[in-house]
């Protein structure tokens, strides 16, 4: 066991080992894709049922990100990415509530391993810089020299600490929460861990929101006019 991960490789796909986290993520992706596909399979002008709920959710996210990021075209462009982050992280976090998670090897929320969260953070980094260059062209480089060129090292350091803090925040929260529930189950097997699991329902949701909002605000800062 290497710091927070069970080394349970299920099978090999060519030279690449596939472990339980990857399989869990495939399951989450398939579930999300199937729900989205069934909602949009035969779309109607007057929506009802699942399509209605999805349209409401999409409009709500557009409004939410527009309010958060000020520029509407940027918000519309990056809302799908950010909402996907939200749904994927939410489902990953909640997959830790399946009975047996965190103390049986093979049942573990993917976000409690920092290899998973660092990938999400790196996607955010690419999105931030691509958005910055598309919005400002080469003038985006001025962003590193603001407010004056002496701040260059600090601005560069910031580019490293942003993804690092995104990674460690999500990973640390989910991993810590899983570990505390596991210790609690070991100490008091009945009833007491239930309170912690109820708290973790709230915490998992907040972490998904926080990751999404922070990614959105990094993109907003990169594309903003005043830097």
């Amino acid at each position, binding site marked *: 066991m290497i710091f927070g991960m069970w080394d349970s490789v299920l099978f090999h796909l060519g030279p690449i080992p596939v472990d339980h986290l990857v399989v869990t993520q495939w399951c989450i992706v398939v579930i999300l894709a199937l729900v989205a596909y069934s909602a949009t399979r035969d779309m109607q002008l007057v929506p009802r049922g699942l399509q209605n709920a999805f349209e409401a959710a999409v409009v709500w996210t557009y409004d939410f990100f527009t309010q958060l990021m000020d520029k509407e075209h940027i918000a519309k462009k990056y809302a799908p990415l950010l909402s996907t982050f939200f749904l994927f992280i939410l489902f990953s976090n909640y997959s830790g509530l399946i009975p047996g998670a965190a103390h049986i090897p093979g049942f573990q929320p993917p976000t409690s391993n920092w290899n998973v969260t660092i990938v999400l953070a790196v996607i955010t980094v690419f999105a931030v810089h691509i958005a910055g260059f598309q919005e400002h062209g080469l003038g985006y480089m001025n962003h590193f020299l603001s407010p004056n060129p002496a701040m260059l090292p600090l601005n560069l350091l910031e580019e490293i600490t942003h993804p690092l803090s995104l990674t460690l*925040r999500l990973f640390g929260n989910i991993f*810590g929460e899983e*570990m505390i529930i596991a210790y609690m189950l070991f100490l008091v097997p009945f009833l007491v861990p239930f309170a912690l699991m109820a708290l973790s329902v709230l915490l998992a949701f907040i972490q998904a929101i926080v990751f999404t909002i922070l990614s959105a605000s990094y993109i907003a800062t990169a594309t903003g006019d005043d830097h």
Partner: protein
Amino acid sequence: MGGSIALGAGLAVSIAGLGGGVGMGVAGGKAIEAIARQPEVGGDVRTLMFITFAFIETLTIYGLLIAFMLVGKM
């Protein structure tokens, strides 16, 4: 050796938690004060409050990670 590692792990998470707790208390209290004074900006303040909490909480989580790493070394 094991004892001092255990002590270090406990101190790492408790000192980090102490600072984070004070910070969150101040931030949350001020945010609620702002919402109570001007309920119409509640939505904006709530979003900002959660972002602030996330930043504060990260520092505590760093302490927690150090504690887990130390416990793993024991």
